[in-house]
Structure formats: C-alpha cells, structure tokens
C-alpha cells in the first residue's frame, strides 16, 4: 500500500467533503494521480461533485466542469473536440460520474458518445443507487437490495452496463476496485494510453446506503470481487475478454452479511443470488477463454 500512498502528483487535496471512510475519495485519488495534471474533469451531480466542491473551493487540482446530471458524455465530447480544435490533443478528458448519471439518466448520451468513439476516459463510480439523495434504486442496484424506492427489495437484476459498453466496440472497457489497487491503477494507466472511448466501472460500496460499518467499505469492495458479484475484467475492442481475478473463493452470503440492505434476506433468495452469480461467472470465463463477442 505504501507505494500508492506516496503516489505523485497528489491531485485530490485533503479536506475534501467525502463521508468519513468512503472509498470514493480513495479511488478518485488514485485515478486522478494516475491521469496526472494535464487532465480536465467532467463531474455531474453525484457524490464526486460533493467531494469536488463547493465554490470557491475545489478539492481537485485540475479544471472541473460540472454538467447537468444526464449529460456527462455529451459534455465530455464537447470539451474533447474543443481541446482538439485548440491543438491540445494530449490533454486528457476524464469523466467521474455516479451510477445514476451513467446507467440511468446519462445513458443515452453515453451510448451516443461511445458510438462516435469520442476520445475520453469515462469512470463510473458505482455505488449501486442514488446515494446522494438518500439511497434510492438505480438500474445498477442489484437484485433484492432494499433502497428508499424498493423497501421490499429490488425485484429485478442489476443492469449489465459493462457488457453494454463493450458491445459498442469501443477500445477499452473494464471493471476495477480500490480493493485491488494495483489492478485499478494498471487499468487507468492502460486506459490513459489509448485514444477513443474508454469506460471504467469502479465499485464504491456506500457506507450509508448499503448499511455498512464505518470501516467496512474496503472489505465490502474486496468481498464483492472475491464472491464474483463484481468480477474484475477487461474487454478490448468489444471482443477480447480478460478475467483479471480468476478465482471466486467466497460465497455471496459472506458479502451480503456485511450489508444492511440485505438484512433478513430469505435463504432461498441468497441461493438465487448465488445461482445468478455462478451463471454470470461461467459466461465470463467462457468469453475470456474463447475471446467471444458479447451475446455470443
């Protein structure tokens, strides 16, 4: 860990407004440090916008444009093209958005930007719900999770946005987690070296919204990878699949037990979730071994 604690440059300043213990700031710190100072950020309304603000202060040492909630990828497209017109082709455009602004209201323009292969790195800091407004469901909220708008548990599964993005055929799509920091940093470095639309989904367990203990953010993130609920993988050019963590030794029950949003979940539902994860994992393994295209 020390290697990363001393990572330079420090692009996210101390004194920011993240909730104590939240790994959103930890994740963003390493993403920003890896992207470096010649980067401009697009941050829509989200937890990251709270961490970045308020005026006249800014916790980020780079220019930030805060667009409307639903327009991050369109705003990133406009900023990217303006930088191109000004000859600043080496300046990176980095979106730091939440899952509401990515999976839901911002999805239309994200799909369009990916279809045009606009040149930016889009990072979805995915805490599986509208946590800034007090934890309501998004289309990223997983099956059976309780939220403010699904008090009896969500009746449908989490949207597989990573595969949808891969299906656009963009050069780089990956999942990452602060629980596997070297893998996260490597993926940001790799994304940084590629031109075109790059999409990174980073799981951010929400202490408040998921009902986690104050010190359990990183543990929950690790368990999500270890049980296969949030597998770490990459898809290049829409068809080259790589599974980065190839074992899933932990039952999903361990992961669920950390979280208040699943408290009292019936055993048959735990089993159903385990079956869903096993099936998705088997499909992912097959794609990784065959290099199959999504939907194959």
């Amino acid at each position, binding site marked *: 860990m020390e290697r990363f604690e001393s990572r330079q440059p420090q692009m996210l300043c101390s004194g920011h407004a993240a909730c104590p213990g939240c790994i959103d700031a930890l994740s963003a710190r390493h993403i920003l440090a890896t992207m470096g100072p*010649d980067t401009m950020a697009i941050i829509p309304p989200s937890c990251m916008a709270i961490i970045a603000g308020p005026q006249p202060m800014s916790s980020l040492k780079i220019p930030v444009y805060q667009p409307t909630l639903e327009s991050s990828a369109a705003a990133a497209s406009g900023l990217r*093209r*303006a930088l191109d017109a000004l000859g600043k082709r080496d300046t990176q455009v980095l979106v730091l958005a939440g899952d509401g602004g990515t999976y839901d209201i911002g999805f239309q323009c994200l799909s369009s930007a990916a279809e045009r292969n606009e040149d930016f790195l889009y990072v979805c800091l995915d805490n599986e719900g509208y946590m800034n407004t007090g934890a309501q469901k998004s289309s990223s909220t997983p099956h059976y999770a309780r939220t403010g708008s699904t008090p009896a548990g969500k009746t449908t599964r989490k949207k597989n946005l990573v595969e949808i993005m891969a299906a656009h055929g963009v050069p780089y799509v990956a999942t990452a987690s602060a629980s596997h920091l070297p893998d996260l940093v490597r993926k940001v470095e790799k994304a940084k070296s590629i031109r075109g639309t790059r999409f990174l989904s980073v799981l951010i367990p929400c202490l408040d919204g998921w009902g986690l203990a104050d010190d359990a953010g990183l543990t929950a993130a690790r368990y999500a990878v270890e049980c296969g609920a949030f597998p770490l993988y990459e898809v290049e050019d829409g068809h080259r699949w790589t599974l980065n963590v190839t074992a899933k030794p932990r039952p999903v029950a361990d992961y669920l037990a950390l979280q208040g949003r699943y408290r009292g979940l019936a055993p048959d539902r735990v089993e159903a979730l385990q079956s869903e994860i096993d099936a998705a994992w088997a499909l992912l393994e097959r794609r990784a071994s065959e290099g199959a295209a999504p939907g194959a």
Partner: protein
Amino acid sequence: MSHATRGPASAASGDRRQGEFAPATDTQVNPPRTTREMLLTGNEAVAWGARLARPQVCPVYPITPQTPVLEALTAFQAEGAFDAEIITPESEHSVMSACIPASLAGTRVFTATASQGLLLMHELLHYASGARAPIVMANVNRTVASPWAFWPDQTDSLAQRDTGWVQLYVETAQEALDSVPQAFRVAEQALLPVMINLDAFYVSHAMEPVDVPAQEEVDAYLPPFAPTQRLDTAVGSSWGNVVSQDMFYRHRQALQEAMERVPALLAQADGEWQRRFGRGYGVVERYRCDDARAVVVTLGSMAGTARVAVDAMRDAGEAVGLVRLRLFRPLPVLALRAALQGVADAVVLDRNHSPGAGGILHQELKAALYGVPGAPRVHGLLAGVGGVNVPPQRIAAFVRTSLERGPANESQWVR
C-alpha cells in the same frame, strides 16, 4: 448610395432603422468589391453566416425545417471550406450539452435547431447563459407539438424568453446571414449566448439573392475568440460547483447587467457591419412611422408582409407605420418607447400563443409601455398562429378593425 435612391421619402433618413443606439443612416457606405451575390434560402444563408464566422466546434442534430443548415455545414466541411469540429450526437439535448464546455474551453461554438429540438434543450439553455457561454444558435421557428405540425410559429423560441439567451428575429435570408457574425460579436463581448430566430419556410426555405461577404472582410469584422477566463489546465479554473445563496444572487445580477449592455452592443455591431457591408438592421426598426397614427408591431417575416400592408395603407392616405423588433431579449424598452412616441395605437401581430395569456409580444409591449405618459393604446392580435397565412390585405383590415373597436386587455384571435 444617396438618400434620393432610398425609396419613399417617408422611409428615408430619420425614419428607418431608429434603434435607441442605431447608427446614423447617412453613414458612409462602401460595399466591398469582393462580395458575391448568391441565390440562397434562409437556411443556406445561416450556414454561410456560420461558415464566415469560423466557429471551431459545431455540435448539431437534424430537425425539420433546420436540417438544411446542418447539411450545408457538413458539405462545407467535406469540401474543405469549413474547419470546425462537427459533433453529431443523438439529440439536441446532447448538442447543447456539448456546446457549453466547448465554449468555456475557449472555442467559438455554433449550432442550429428548431421547435421540439429547442424545447429539448430547455434545461441546457439556462445552463449555457448561467455559464456565460457565448454560443450562437440559429433556431428555425416552427410550431410546437402536440399535435404535430411543421408551420411557422414563434412559440418555440418565445417560450425560452426567460432562459438568459439574447434573442434576435430576422426578416430575410440576407439578415439571417448578416446576423451570425453580428451575433458572435455581441455574444463574445457580453459573454451571453445568442439565438437567431428565422421563421420556418417563409425565411428558412424561401430563396432570395443574398450578398455573401468575402471571408477576409468578415475576419476583419470579427476577431478570433480568445477569452482570458476559460477551462484550461494552464489556468486551472472550474465551472459549475455548488455556490452559496449570496454567490447565486450576485451571479444573477451580473447576468442582468450583461443583458442590459446588449442593445448598445448590438447597435455597435450592426453599425460596424453597415459601415463595412452597406447593410444594417438596427435594434428596433421603424418603417414609415413619421406622423403615423397607428403602427403595426411584430417580429420576423410577418414584418415583410406588414411592410406591404403599410405601403398600401399609406397609398390610401392612412397614417400607418411598422415597428419591427429585431432584438426581443433583452426587450429594448427604451427604443420601443421612443419608436412609439406620439403614436395613438399600436397593433401587435403575434405569430405565437401563450395559453391563458395570449400573444407574448402583446404582453411584453404592454409591460414596456406601462407608466409612460401618452403611451399608445395597445391592441394584441393572435395572427398567423400555427402558420395560418396572413396576407397584406388582412393586416390592413386588422388595423382598421382594431382602431374601430378600441383596445382590449386580452389578445384577439384573428385570421
């Protein structure tokens, strides 16, 4: 060009083009020899205006009847004559979303839309003016659904009057072309977005001979956009963070102050254009208003028809004139009051409809004249709503009927 060649004596110097800051009409006029005359539609003229203004980023989405603007710009680019980053997103919403940070990064940004597209942008229109992004957008005025229709009607843009965009309404293809470089000058001086409105089909698709200025002449008129405050890693500033109540309040005051500068900036931009190219439009145009007892007040292409009606009524000995607002936002209140001084009756023709309120220009004019001693009686007519044809004879009849009936607070449906 001498005054003697300008047409009817009553339309000569001192009568036409009297905005509150409008240039004197005897300004030396030297049309450049490099001007080309082309037969263009209003849409093509807008595209030529954009080409000559050299925007660097153009996000754009097709919609009837604006699509020919998009196609002309992409054709210009394909032939190597238009060096802009053209972005073709999935919606007008994303078009305006892309325009704002592109403008804040310090590039000149142009786009065009119409009707439903403008309404889809609504949230971002506020965002753009709040960000003080000097985007220029052409809007082809078309009916707003439902039900679906494609006819000239200005409800689309007039419904955006509170979004912080400067709004111009043009009468001809020539004015549409000339207004694009003028709009960029005003936008970049005031740091406000500007919307140039042209009526569907009457202006957007009708062809007319248009003088197309040479690129170097427009370059001399419109310097490159180079803002000192911009999104730039070398500058380090940001935009959009949460602000306090006090900061928001002061920000809105600054926006108001910028708007208040616009009539003078437009008059300067128009005056400079007139000196260079021999054509000016002013802020508020008065046509044959000397000694007029009644004047028609309107926007856009309706003014072209009203001009014919006024000529006919003058020929019949009726003291009627025309006031055309080229600038609608900010409403040029002082110029309007001056233009209507001594007039007994103002007959407003509204090709738009605000349900429950009536004609939007009617409301605006009544507000502008409130408390003015000797202000004219104001008659509001909902004429041409939905693209219904309004021939000159009907306008003459509207004026006569209004004078007989006297003013009503409510707008009247006429056809």
